[in-house]
């Protein structure tokens, strides 16, 4: 029993510190290390007995931690009791929200004036736009020549192949 106790405690210690020392098991199999363990046991027990009290609280807190972790990880449908707001609490909050929403929204008027990407837009006086003078011939010619020049330039773009695409990198051979 003592052997078991010390064995597990020792494991705890090593796992807590996470450091390898002269007592760390190199092999997982405890049978092969049996004599070694017993020696450790007597030393450990002596030192442990002197400070039993703090260890107990440690254990308690460790157990509590495990319990808490388990509780947070378990999906407990039975414990799902919804906390219902009291009527007056609800009304109070609604009042506060009403006032604050008013404030926040009046500070952000642009949120409601800009519509997301309208495809078509209303024009107040369409006859003005429709009656406006057409584009002059000079402008039209300018646009045409500019566009044909741009098109010609685009068709002239070519990849000038000078070096190999695949290059041996970092090889000195």
């Amino acid at each position, binding site marked *: 029993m003592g052997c078991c106790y010390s064995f597990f405690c020792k494991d705890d210690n090593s796992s807590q510190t996470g450091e390898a020392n002269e007592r760390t098991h190199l092999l997982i199999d405890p049978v092969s290390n049996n004599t070694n363990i017993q020696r450790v046991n007597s030393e450990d027990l002596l030192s442990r007995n002197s400070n039993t009290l703090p260890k107990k609280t440690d254990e308690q807190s460790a157990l509590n931690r495990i319990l808490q972790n388990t509780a947070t990880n378990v999906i407990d449908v039975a414990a*799902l009791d*919804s906390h219902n707001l009291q009527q007056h609490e609800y009304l109070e*909050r609604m009042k506060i929200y*009403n006032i*604050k929403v*008013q404030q926040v*929204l009046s500070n952000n008027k642009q949120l*409601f004036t800009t519509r997301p990407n309208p495809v078509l837009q209303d024009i107040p006086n369409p006859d003005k736009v429709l009656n406006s003078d057409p584009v002059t011939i000079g402008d039209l010619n300018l646009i045409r020549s500019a566009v044909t020049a741009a098109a010609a330039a685009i068709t002239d773009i070519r990849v000038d192949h000078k070096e190999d695409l695949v290059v041996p990198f970092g090889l000195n051979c």
Partner: protein
Amino acid sequence: MVEEARKYLQDIMAQVNGLYCILITDIDGVPLVKVSSDKTPEHATRPNFISTFRLAIDQGSKLGLGKTNTLICCYSQYQVVQMNKLPLIVSFVASDSCTTGHILALESQLDPIIEQLALVVGEA
């Protein structure tokens, strides 16, 4: 000003055929802004119902699938889509035949308003 916001939400609601209600509430289901049509089932907008979303996402996060973003519940006559915008919950109530994808697509349009409204709850 709230009227303008409501109008804006009405317009968004009208974009989706069969959408009856857009409800922006805090985590306990207390409404901040609500737009709804006559067809909205009253039970679906109650705080008791809305606040169960919080419990569902709390438990759902333990499944190891990450944070819950959206919860879609389809009933025989209605569907309820709830979005996790903590500290707010955005709930949509629609008919069962409404295209759920259209509702989900509204998220990007609502995000700017929700950002601002989240400040209200943060302050309170």
